[in-house]
C-alpha cells in the first residue's frame, strides 16, 4: 500500500505495461533492442525533464520554453567547434555546457530585470537562440568525433552510456533536492514564495540557480543527442518541449509547484518512448501516433488530478 501511494509508481507501471504490450506483439523477440532504445531515448527526455522539473517546482507560471532552442544551439556550436576532429570531445562538452549556462543566465536576467513572466521571457529568448543556431549552422551537418559518437551509442554493463549519464544526473538532482539545504529552499519557494522570502530563504538565488540548471541540462542533452544521432539538426530539439513538460507531469510532480519527484521523471521518460514505439510496432500512421500521444498525455493529467482530488 505504501508503494502504491508513491506517485512515481504509476509512471513505472505504465512503462512496464507498454513494454510488455510491445514485446507481446513480437512474442518476445527484440526485447533487448527495445530496452536499449528506450533507455537511450529515455535518457534525453529524462535529462531535460529533470531540469524542467526543477523549474516547475518553483511554482505556478514557472516553465522553461527555451529548452528546444537551447539544445539545438548548444549542439550546433559544440559540433562546429569540434569539427569532427579526434580528441575534442571534452572541448565540445565544455562549449555545450557553457552555451547552456549562458542561455540560463539570459533567461533569468530577462525574468529578473524586465520582470517578465518566465513563459514570455524564455519564449522570446528562445527565438533568439534559434536564430543564432540557424545562423551558425547554415545547414551544415558536421559529424561528431568518432570516439564521441562511439561513446554516445555505446554501452557499459549492458546499459547505454547516455542512460548512465541520465541516471547519474537523476541521482545528483535527487541528492540536491532531498538532502541539501538548496532542495529545501527550492521546495519552500515553490510552495509559497512570499513566505519563503520572509523566512529568510534567498529566493532570487534559488530561482537563478534553477534557471541555470535547466539550461545547462538542456545543453548537455543537446550535446549527447547530437553525438548519438550523428550530428546536430535545426529541429532536433522540437519534440523535447512537450516531452520535458509531459514527463514531469506524468512522473507525479505537481504542476502547481512545491513538490517534485525524481524517479517519476525517469519512469515517465521511458513510458513516453515506449508508447511511441508500441504505436510504431502496431503499424500506426504518423497522424494517428500524434493523436494518441496527445490523448495519452491528457488522459494521464486527468487521472493524476482526480487521484489528487480523492485524497
Amino acid at each position, binding site marked *: 500500500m505504501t508503494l502504491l501511494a508513491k506517485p512515481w509508481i504509476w509512471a513505472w507501471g505504465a512503462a512496464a505495461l507498454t513494454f510488455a504490450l510491445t514485446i507481446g506483439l513480437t512474442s518476445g523477440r527484440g526485447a533487448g533492442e527495445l530496452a536499449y532504445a528506450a533507455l537511450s531515448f529515455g535518457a534525453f527526455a529524462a535529462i531535460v525533464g529533470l531540469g524542467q522539473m526543477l523549474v516547475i517546482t518553483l511554482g505556478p*507560471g514557472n*516553465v522553461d520554453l527555451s529548452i528546444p532552442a537551447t539544445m539545438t544551439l548548444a549542439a550546433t556550436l559544440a559540433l562546429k567547434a569540434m569539427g569532427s576532429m579526434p580528441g575534442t570531445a571534452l572541448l565540445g562538452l565544455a562549449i555545450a555546457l557553457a552555451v547552456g549556462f549562458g542561455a540560463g543566465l539570459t533567461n533569468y536576467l*530577462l525574468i529578473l530585470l*524586465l*520582470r*517578465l*513572466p518566465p*513563459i*514570455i521571457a524564455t*519564449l*522570446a*529568448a*528562445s*527565438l*533568439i537562440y*534559434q*536564430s*543564432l543556431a*540557424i*545562423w551558425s549552422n*547554415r545547414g551544415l551537418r558536421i559529424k561528431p568525433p568518432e570516439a564521441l559518437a562511439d561513446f554516445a551509442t555505446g554501452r557499459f554493463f549492458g546499459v547505454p552510456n547516455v542512460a548512465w549519464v541520465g541516471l547519474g544526473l537523476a541521482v545528483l538532482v535527487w541528492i540536491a533536492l532531498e538532502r541539501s539545504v538548496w532542495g529545501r529552499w527550492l521546495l519552500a519557494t515553490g510552495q509559497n514564495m512570499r513566505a519563503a522570502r520572509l523566512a529568510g530563504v534567498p529566493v532570487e538565488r534559488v530561482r537563478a540557480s534553477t534557471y541555470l540548471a535547466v539550461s545547462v541540462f538542456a545543453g548537455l542533452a543537446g550535446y549527447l543527442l547530437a553525438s548519438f544521432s550523428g550530428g546536430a539538426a535545426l529541429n532536433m530539439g522540437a519534440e523535447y*518541449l*512537450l516531452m520535458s*513538460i*509531459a514527463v514531469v*507531469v506524468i512522473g507525479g510532480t505537481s*504542476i*502547481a509547484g512545491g513538490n517534485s519527484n525524481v524517479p517519476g521523471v525517469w519512469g515517465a521518460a521511458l513510458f513516453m518512448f515506449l508508447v511511441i514505439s508500441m504505436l510504431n510496432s502496431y503499424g500506426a*500512421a*504518423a*497522424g*494517428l*501516433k*500524434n*493523436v*494518441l*500521444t*496527445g*490523448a495519452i*498525455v*491528457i488522459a494521464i*493529467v*486527468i487521472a493524476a*488530478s*482526480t487521484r489528487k*482530488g480523492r485524497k
Partner: protein
Amino acid sequence: MNTLSRYRIILPVVSLVVLLAATFWMQPRAMSYFGLNLLFNLAVPIALATMAQMMIIMVNDIDLSLGAFVSLVACITATYLLDTPVLGLAMLVALILAYAAMGAMIHALELPAIVVTLGMSFVWGGFALFILPSPGGASPDWLRALMTVKPPFAPMAVVASILIAVVTHLLIIRSALGTVLRGVGGNTRSVARAGWSVLKLKACAYGLAGFFGVLAGMALVGLTTSADANIALRYTLLSIAGVILGGGEFVGGKVSPVGAVIGALTLTLAASFLSFLRLSPDWQIGAQGAILILVLTARLIFSRKGAET
C-alpha cells in the same frame, strides 16, 4: 498613474508607428497601396490567431495548441471545405465545440491549461496529418476572392485588421458578455459569487478562441491557396507575443483587442522590415524575439515612471 500607464494602448501604437516610419525611410516605395499590401499581406491570419490567443489569456490560461489548431483548420479548408462544403463546415463547427469542451474540461477538473493544450497540439497536428499527409489542397474560390479583394483607399489587410479590431473591441470591452469574461480573469471567485457559471464562461471563452482560430486558418488558406500540416505552427508563439505586445497581461483579465491587433501588425511588419535591412533571413525569428523584449523593456520603464509620479 500617468497618461502612459493609464492608456496602455499608447505603447503598442508608438511601436508600430516607429517601425512603420523606419520601414518607409528604408524603402520609400513601400509607402503606397501596393507596398502596404505587401508589407501586411500575412497580417490578417496572424491578427485573427492573436485574437484567439487573447480569449484564452483573458481567462488566465495560455494556449500552446493554437498553431497546430490553425494548421488543422487550414488543412480542412483546403480539402473538405473545397470539395464538400457542408461536411467541411460541420467539421469546423465541431472544432469550435471541441475547443469549448476543452475549456470546460480544464475548468471542471482544474487541469493545468499549459499541459492540456500542449497535449492537444499533438492531437490537432495528428488530425492535420491524417487529412493532408503531404502539402496540397486548394483554396475555395470565394475565400481566395475575399482575401484578395482590393477595397478603395486602403489595402485589404489594413481594412480587415481595422474591422477585426473594432468587432473584438465591441465584443470584449463594450458588451456585457465580454465584461464578465474579463471578470473571470480578474477575479474568478467574485464572478462565481455573483451567480455566473464560471464553467459556462470558460467554455465560452475557449469557444470564442476556437472561432477566431477557425477564421485564422481560413484566412491563411485564402492567402496561400494551399495548406500543409505544419503551415501555422509558429502562430502559437506569434499569437502570445502579439497579445503581450498589445498591452495584455498574463493574469487579471487585462487585455486590449485593439492593442493585440496592433501587436500582430507590428510582428508582421518586423519580418518585412528585416528584409529591407538586407539582414540575413536567419535572423527573422530572432528579431521578433528581440522586438518583443525591447517593447517589454519600454513598457517596464514607462510603468516605473508611472509609479514614481
